[in-house]
């Protein structure tokens, strides 16, 4: 038995933040190395899953536990079920949101480790304040309450609080920083944390109020429309609300950053952490024995549970991967500056050692310095075993030169030379690039393009997003590479000295053990690259390309239903072209010319109305059929089918419909086109849902018989259809071309964007939807204007009068529709 075993054997730990990087590693280490230990984990209840379920899924299933799983074999599940308890709660609420059982569980614990934090450097201020600033005090308050509960049973309750903070609470200082409490020594920043809490909460309510001002709401709505087009009221509203929430969040992030910087911290994280320490000490130093552990930048494990273990995509990884992919050409920093990195297992070991030794109180023995309570421990490498920024860059460069990532064509990516520029320069460059791309995107996005060109715009948007993200990294993390504070580890080393040799072996946390060259090349980078799922082999990927996998999923016999849009999904044509064809079929050459002229003149306003609202457009446009002979148009529609629809059809689309049918999928055409136009396509599908015109005495009235299946109505139609037929939408496909089809696409499990226009292309790219680029047959006829060949049938007379006559009569009506 080592001294740690003796001190902690059979102990019960209360841990917050177990689902985080450090928390997961800590829980695993406790369970694996401390005999008969148990853990009680505070977890926010998920929307659908219980705390126990969340722990099982998000903690115990993590590959961190692979080693323990192997060691315990079949006993793993039972052992862990016995030793791990989950209690529902939240460090963001007072009393940790614990119920009586939760509090009782806490009362039975010996050691409390608070590692829950909003570690994201760009958290909204109020969230950071609730969790980082108030969290530690809430945990301490709960401990006090638990001790009272325990006392009733004649027990002592939890005896030691270890609060995980960050070394960067001292980030603003230059030179060596001792392990002192915030507010003492060189930490004398005179801020009233209570006032900060009040202000942050106020900022939230102000931002919420501001975001609801009519002008702002109009802006969000416009933004949503710009993004989605005429996707229907419901989707646009949902999108606008997301825009609003995003705006509030962004605003609070900026507010937090500004406030932190005004006080000298690089961002809201160390600022709220620092004030959190202060609040904790100020309120609970006398009530609760406290140890504050301040790690620097925590990175992948050096050895435990295995070299390179990491959870989540952390601060340095995205930067490294962006660099290796050639996206980030520069990153600010001074080569001789120290980048203070510490492997996660060292931090875990330090926490366990601190727990084993227990809180220090009063004067210590003669050979040790007098320690104040609460105690602060830095777990950092900067003084003991410094890694210079220049050296890190060299190591990274060398490794990627030898193990390059590969681009989509299987070509190795050359990593750029790092020139250690100033932060300002990099920021300027990146933001200029971002602005330019934004402008280009908006300019091109306004063009009525679709298919491959639209995909190109979407790619541009993605580059823009990457540039923005790179800028984000530089803004967020730039100051960390430029920091000149160096964190002393005297107390940490004193703790290290208390360990016997066996414990030093098992719970190593001396930063000197890290060989940076080895760590970067053989531990960290291989792990990062693996996590980033980037291509590390040359040539064509041995993996089946994403699009082929998507096709295979779509063409699986397990699917149920495939819904197809008509225009620009099956055929490169539209309702205007069909109308023009039918109407011109019986006109004399002279009338045809003037007909074409008039239709061309109306084209822009028709296009605009279509963009605004598809339903209004169709209703207005179909009124042109008023008075036309139904029988005759039905007759003509067969020629229309050959001349226009089939001639401009996408053979690949027709082949796809047929393929779905042969696989036993139900196929449905759902279109706003008229029944008489789509009639000849009927045999291609199992079912057709389309618009129908009202008829009276053999003539069309120009009114639609029922709501045309477009926009949201289309999704409803599909849902009703699926339900009636006992088919499941999550096992179904929808093929469509425009953002106005979003409700339909979102309704199914396998949406496919066909020749998407710019907005849908961008959405499809973001959501990883499959995209098809289908072209009309090369050898098909391509009339410049969709005019029917003249019919000289003797019965042609009346219909000529009726269709064009209807158009004339309708012009005033069209004005009423807002044109």
């Amino acid at each position: 038995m080592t001294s740690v075993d003796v001190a902690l054997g059979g102990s019960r730990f209360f841990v917050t933040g177990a689902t985080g990087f450090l928390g997961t590693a800590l829980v695993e280490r406790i369970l694996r190395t401390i005999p008969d230990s148990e853990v009680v984990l505070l977890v926010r209840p998920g929307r659908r899953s219980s705390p126990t379920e969340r722990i099982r899924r998000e903690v115990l299933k993590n590959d961190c536990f692979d080693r323990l799983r192997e060691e315990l074999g079949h006993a793993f599940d039972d052992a862990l079920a016995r030793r791990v308890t989950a209690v529902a709660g939240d460090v963001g609420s007072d009393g940790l949101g614990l119920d009586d059982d939760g509090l009782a569980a806490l009362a039975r614990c010996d050691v409390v480790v608070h590692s829950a934090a909003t570690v994201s450097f760009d958290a909204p201020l109020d969230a950071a304040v609730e969790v980082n600033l108030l969290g530690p005090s809430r945990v301490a308050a709960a401990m006090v309450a638990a001790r009272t509960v325990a006392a009733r049973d004649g027990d002592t309750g939890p005896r030691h609080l270890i609060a995980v903070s960050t070394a960067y609470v001292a980030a603003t200082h230059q030179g060596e920083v001792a392990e002192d409490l915030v507010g003492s020594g060189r930490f004398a920043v005179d801020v009233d944390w209570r006032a900060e809490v009040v202000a942050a909460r106020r900022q939230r309510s102000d931002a919420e109020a501001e975001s609801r001002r009519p002008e702002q709401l109009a802006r969000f709505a416009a933004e949503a429309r710009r993004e989605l087009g005429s996707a229907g009221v419901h989707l646009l509203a949902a999108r606008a609300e997301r825009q609003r929430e995003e705006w509030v969040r962004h605003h609070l992030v900026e507010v937090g950053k500004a406030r932190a910087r005004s006080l000298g911290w690089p961002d809201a994280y160390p600022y709220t952490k620092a004030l959190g320490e202060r609040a904790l000490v100020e309120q609970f130093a006398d009530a609760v024995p406290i140890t504050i552990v301040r790690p620097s930048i925590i990175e992948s494990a050096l050895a435990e549970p295995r070299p390179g273990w990491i959870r989540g995509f952390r601060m340095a990884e995205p930067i490294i991967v962006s660099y290796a992919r050639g996206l980030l050409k520069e990153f600010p920093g001074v080569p001789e500056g120290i980048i203070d990195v510490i492997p996660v297992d060292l931090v875990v070991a330090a926490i366990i050692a601190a727990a084993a030794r227990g809180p220090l109180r009063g004067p210590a023995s003669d050979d040790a310095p007098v320690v104040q309570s609460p105690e602060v421990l830095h777990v950092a490498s900067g003084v003991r075993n410094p890694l210079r920024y220049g050296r890190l860059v060299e190591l990274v460069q060398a490794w990627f030169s030898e193990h390059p990532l590969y681009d989509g064509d299987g070509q190795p990516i050359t990593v750029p030379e790092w020139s250690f520029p100033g932060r300002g320069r990099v920021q300027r460059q990146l933001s200029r690039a971002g602005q330019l791309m934004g402008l280009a995107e908006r300019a091109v996005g306004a063009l009525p393009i679709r298919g491959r060109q639209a995909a190109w715009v979407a790619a541009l948007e993605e580059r823009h997003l990457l540039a923005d993200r790179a800028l984000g990294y530089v803004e967020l993390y730039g100051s960390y590479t430029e920091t000149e504070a160096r964190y002393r580890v005297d107390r940490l080393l004193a703790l290290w000295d208390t360990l016997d040799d066996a414990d030093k072996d098992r719970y190593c946390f001396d930063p000197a053990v890290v060989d940076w060259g080895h760590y970067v090349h053989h531990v960290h980078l291989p792990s990062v690259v693996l996590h980033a799922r980037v291509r590390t082999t040359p040539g064509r990927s041995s993996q089946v390309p994403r699009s082929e996998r998507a096709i295979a999923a779509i063409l699986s016999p397990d699917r149920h239903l495939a819904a197809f849009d008509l225009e620009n999904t099956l055929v490169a044509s539209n309702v205007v072209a069909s109308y023009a064809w039918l109407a011109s079929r019986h006109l004399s050459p002279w009338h045809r010319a003037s007909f074409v002229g008039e239709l061309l003149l109306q084209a822009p306003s028709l296009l605009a109305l279509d963009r605004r609202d598809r339903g209004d457009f169709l209703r207005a446009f179909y009124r042109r059929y008023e008075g036309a002979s139904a029988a005759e148009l039905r007759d003509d529609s067969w020629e229309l089918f050959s001349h226009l629809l089939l001639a401009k059809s996408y053979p690949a689309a027709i082949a796809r419909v047929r393929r779905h049918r042969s696989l036993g999928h139900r196929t449905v055409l759902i279109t706003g086109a008229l029944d008489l136009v789509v009639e000849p396509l009927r045999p291609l599908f199992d079912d057709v849902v389309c618009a129908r015109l009202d008829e009276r005495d053999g003539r069309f009235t120009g009114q639609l018989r029922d709501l045309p299946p477009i926009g949201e109505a289309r999704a409803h139609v599909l849902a009703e259809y699926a339900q009636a037929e006992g088919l499941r939408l999550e096992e179904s496909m929808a093929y469509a071309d425009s953002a106005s089809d979003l409700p339909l696409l979102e309704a199914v499990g396998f949406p496919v964007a066909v020749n998407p226009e710019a907005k849908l292309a961008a959405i499809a790219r973001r959501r990883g939807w499959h995209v098809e680029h289908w072209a009309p047959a090369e050898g098909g006829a391509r009339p410049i204007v969709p005019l029917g060949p003249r019919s000289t049938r003797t019965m042609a007379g009346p219909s000529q009068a009726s269709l064009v006559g209807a158009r004339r009569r309708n012009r005033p009506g069209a004005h009423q529709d807002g044109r």
Partner: protein
Amino acid sequence: MSPRPGFVLEVDRSTPPTLFWHGERFRLERLPEGSRVVYAPEPLDPLPDPRAAIRQALLNPLGDRDPLPALLHPGMKLTIAFDDVSLPLPPMERPDIRQLVIEEVLELAATAGVDDVVLLAALALHRRMTEAELRHALGDRVYDAFAPNGLLLQHDAEDPDQLLHLGTTEQGEDVEINRRAAESDLLVYVNINLVAMDGGHKSVATGLASYRSIRHHHNPTTMQHSRSFMDQTRSELHSSNWRMGRLIAASGVTVFQIETTLNTNTFPSQFAFLQRREWEWGTRDRLTYLGAAGALDRTPARLARRIFHSVRAPHRMTSVQAGEVEAVHAATTDHVLAQQSVVVDGQTDIVTMGLPYISPYNVGSILNPILVACLGLGYFFNLYRNKPLVRPGGVAIISHPTTPEFDPVHHPSYIDFFEEVLAETTDPVEMAARFEESFATDPWYVHLYRTGHAYHGVHPFYMWYWCAHALDHLGAVVIVGGDPATVRRLGFRPASTLSDALELAKDVVGPSPTLTHLHVPPILMADVQ
């Protein structure tokens, strides 16, 4: 001066370059010395008064058949079937021969007091004709008299109500033809016999038949045993049709066959150079060639195609005969050969051919890759009697752009055939076994054939079977100037120039090969001695 017969030129140092058709373009190629070029005979003189000749033929039938007026009586059911848009090529200037013949027949019928008359386009498995095409073939007067009253029909090989199964031949072949035609008291069939394959019993037995019936002779085995299908004496295709035709006659269907032949006057005067021999080109021919070739090179293919498809040929009728099918057809075949036959001495190692923009199956449309194969290896290769122009194991070099372009209206099943069948196999026997049935019975293709203007789903298979004899016979096929991926999909070898193609061919037939160029169109029949 009487028209000159066909001619075989031996290329020497003084021979000017030879004109090759290349789809909607032309190429001038210098052939190796010693090569031969086979030219069609010059157009025969047409009949001076076609209408009088037609009436003559109707009143003086051949074989065991009464004159037409004797076969017409009041209360009878008369059906007049006629060849569809696949004939002649290019479509002829107005008036079309069909119009002339049908007007004469209708006049006799009117005189005899016949009022149950139906006109029937003999489509077989071809696409339905458009209104414009019907008007062109029949003339506006006939069209307007019949179409609005529903008396102008197009044969529908997929309408069970419109078909009648007449029995099976002694070889077990189903004979199923158009019900109206079969149940008529008299079936008049109006032919245009452009090539020696056309007409005879094939008119009714194929033109008015169903897939169930046609599949007995449109298959790889028959085509491999038709050497060639242009020579009815050695054509299994014809033997089968003749068996069926006799069964149709035995079933009581009275066919009054009218066959007509055309001269080789194929192109209008602005393209006169196309039917002159290059060394005889005058200044005007050179200039029109330069103008046409230069302009076409600068014209987008789509536009060039439209220009060419608007060409109407100045063909003129050289003969008309009517009466009993077999007697009529024997006389017709003599007339066809009189116009087209060219004696060629011996086979060659390599045959070269330039394919034009048109074949029987893409009137008004595009010559897709499958039709390229069919026109070159089906039609042109089979334009022989006795022996093929090229020796067994020889090479065919075809000049055509061969792009992967298809007409989605006329050839929908071709697109899938190209993507699904040819990607798997180019062997006619294998594809017949594995794929034919599913294409032939596919409801979507049937729908498009019946209601649109699509060839039947099985048609691309037939086009490929048409090549079966050539594929068996040849050592290799090279396409000059084609899209390489498409050419390879067809199982052929791509070459960018004729000299590259000749090098490829030498790998197959050995060094210093003999070469013969088939200078078609105008159409000729090589009588290989």
